[in-house]
């Protein structure tokens, strides 16, 4: 957008509005989204330092009726990550996208916790704060059990 503005002729006076309307950016997590793993497992520690940041390659949404190509995942959703050349399942514990629900916080980084196929977390501790509703949801209880701080 900035390049285009520079190309606009500056001498023509009748061009009053040079700016474009921009919608607020969406920080949804979808395929190819880069993500930060907040486990203390070995794969997490290696994966965060690897040449490529861990990325989401698939979102497992409970509702399968979504036909659009842009499948987004939010807090508490299971995703498939590509870490250090491997595929690993994970649960999203922190989302930059703002959720308009009461008592659900917004995070400054997209955080994720690694789990295995049964749903058990791979690490033993979670280093970042976790949304409080993880305690009440049954399928996220295992994550809440190893969490250190709640928000």
């Amino acid at each position, binding site marked *: 957008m900035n390049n285009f503005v520079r190309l606009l002729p500056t001498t023509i006076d009748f061009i009053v509005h040079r700016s474009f309307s921009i919608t607020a950016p969406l920080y949804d997590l979808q395929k190819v989204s880069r993500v930060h793993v907040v486990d203390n497992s070995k794969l997490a520690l290696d994966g965060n330092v690897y040449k490529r940041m861990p990325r989401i390659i698939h979102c497992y949404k409970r509702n399968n009726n979504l036909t659009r190509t842009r499948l987004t995942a939010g807090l508490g959703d299971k995703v498939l990550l590509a870490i250090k050349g491997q595929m690993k399942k994970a649960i999203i514990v*922190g989302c930059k996208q*703002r959720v308009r629900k*009461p*008592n659900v*916080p*917004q*995070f*400054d*980084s997209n955080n994720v916790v690694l789990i295995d196929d049964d749903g058990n977390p791979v690490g033993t501790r979670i*280093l*970042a*704060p976790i949304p409080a509703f993880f305690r009440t949801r049954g399928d996220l209880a295992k994550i809440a059990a190893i969490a250190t*701080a709640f*928000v």
Partner: protein
Amino acid sequence: MKLEICNYSGYKIYPGHGKRVVKIDGKVHIYLNSKCQRSADMRRNPRRVTWTVLYRRKHKKGAAEQEIKKRTRRTVKFQRAITGATWNDILAKRNQQPEFRKAQRQDAINAAKLAKKAKTQQKKAAQTGGVKTGKPVKKPEKIQKNIPKAGPKKGTQR
């Protein structure tokens, strides 16, 4: 519902308002509105932003703070006895007249002089008795001369 306080402005956040943000280091910030959040994101120090509570506290604005400061504490002197001297003893010493003290000083000096005389007489007697011992006899004489001089001084200075 718990009433939160905005991290930036210090205002109360009622239910239905405000936004909670978790920073990368794990710290949680609660903002009243986007004005506070954007100011914080712009790294504006709330202590320099005039309308925030932190600024007002720092620059001591508002009458309430001044009232609290007016209450000053005064230390009360408390007189009490010490082990070794009861309260009456302390009072007696404090209320001694100067003449009384002078008389005490004189008595002490006289006593010391008598003691000194007695000691020199004793040493003379010892000297005549034991001349054969020689040098070691001289040393105790020198030490004894110093002691009576120090005696009266100790008693007077109080």
